[in-house]
């Protein structure tokens, strides 16, 4: 039996969980993870007024200086938009703020019945983002606000898992709010993971247990980060075409991929895709588990059946 050391703590408005097989080096591993999380928060937080993202969003269309990490985060977001043909779009910042997600979620959850009309920001505006790597500047049109929520957390998980593994060796699993990145050799039999709708309210009878050997595993859900407005319930996954919360065809979509970024991009796109999601995920060969609004579970791409089912 492989011995695993674990550390968990609040981070990025959710929870961070770190598992390593090199048990004596857990302390160093945690420090590296904390460094990565602090760096991604400084670069990509939508709710920190001093973050690079906030400065860019207040830039009125002027080119803004960017750190290496922030440029990488925007590149990842643009890649996500490209590979999903705009289903995952970093330019939904204005739209998601308009429907109510404009501050830390704890504050939003207490607010009820406010008028939150949809702002159609126009799909495809990610194509107007300009990066200049040499000058290290980013330029977005003055009326566009970025939101890197669909990719930045996953990027942090991938970066942290890779750095920790390089520093201490062995097997490493980093989970940020239920999105997992794995590096190095897995424990015998793989990493045991419970896949469910809400990572903070999981129970052994909820969802499905699987073993994961490497790469990334992510879950997106319309059942969490929900709030009430005068126009009805909203959730945090925005359809860039409408500017509103995506239709709730799926309560949750879980995807295993080569990295946490790839997995998270796929789950977000699948929620927006709606009915077409299973075919899209299967065509990409991504092992996926989809839970419909009525609780019906679909599995595609080689996702395993439940044990005993």
């Amino acid at each position, binding site marked *: 039996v492989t011995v695993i050391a674990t550390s968990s703590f609040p981070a990025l408005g959710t929870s961070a*969980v770190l598992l390593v097989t090199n048990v004596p080096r857990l302390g160093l591993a945690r420090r590296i993870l904390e460094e990565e999380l602090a760096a991604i928060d400084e670069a990509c937080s939508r709710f920190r007024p001093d973050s690079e993202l906030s400065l860019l969003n207040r830039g009125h269309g002027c080119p803004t200086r960017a750190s290496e990490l922030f440029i990488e985060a925007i590149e990842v977001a643009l890649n996500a938009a490209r590979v999903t043909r705009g289903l995952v779009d970093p330019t939904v910042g204005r739209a998601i703020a308009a429907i109510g997600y404009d501050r830390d979620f704890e504050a939003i959850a207490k607010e009820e019945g406010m008028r939150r009309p949809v702002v159609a920001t126009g799909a495809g505006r990610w194509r107007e983002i300009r990066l200049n790597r040499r000058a290290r500047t980013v330029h977005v049109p003055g009326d566009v606000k970025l939101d890197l929520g669909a990719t930045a957390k996953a990027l942090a998980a991938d970066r942290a898992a890779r750095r920790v593994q390089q520093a201490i060796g062995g097997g490493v699993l980093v989970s940020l709010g239920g999105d*997992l990145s794995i590096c190095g050799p897995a424990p015998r039999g793989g990493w*045991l993971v419970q896949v469910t709708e809400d990572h903070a309210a999981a129970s052994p*009878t909820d969802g499905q*247990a699987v073993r994961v050997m*490497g790469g990334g595993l992510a879950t997106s859900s319309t059942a969490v980060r929900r709030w009430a407005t005068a126009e009805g319930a909203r959730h945090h996954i925005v359809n860039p075409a409408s500017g509103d919360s995506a239709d709730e065809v799926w309560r949750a979509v879980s995807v295993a991929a080569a990295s946490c970024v790839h997995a998270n991009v796929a789950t977000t796109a699948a929620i927006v895709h709606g009915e077409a999601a299973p075919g899209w995920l299967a065509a990409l060969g991504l092992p996926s588990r989809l839970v419909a609004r009525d609780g019906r579970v679909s599995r595609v791409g080689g*996702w*395993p059946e439940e044990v005993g089912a």
Partner: protein
Amino acid sequence: MDRTPPGGSRSRIEARDAALSLLGRLRRWIVVVSLGLVAALAGLVAHAKPGKSSTTSGASGGSRDAARSSQPSAGGGSGGDALAPAPAAPAPAISPPAEAPLPAPATPAPPVVSGGS
């Protein structure tokens, strides 16, 4: 000996000199305005067709980025050391894992949860 030209001739010479001076100034202004127009036109073309830099470093950067973009990676990479308009590079696919998840019994309870957050 008086070399001063007669009054009529002097005024003609002065008029000619003034005209030549005006032509010279006009020519300089035409050159300056033309250069400005060329620069403005170049700026417009560069804005309309970004990423088409003719510098050698930009070209080599482009090929390197294209190669990088074709490889699946966590970092993704939109391509572009120079101006990097989003849709220019070929789209890398979302890559599946080396091995699909395996079935597992529900007990003991797994130490890690993947769920919405």
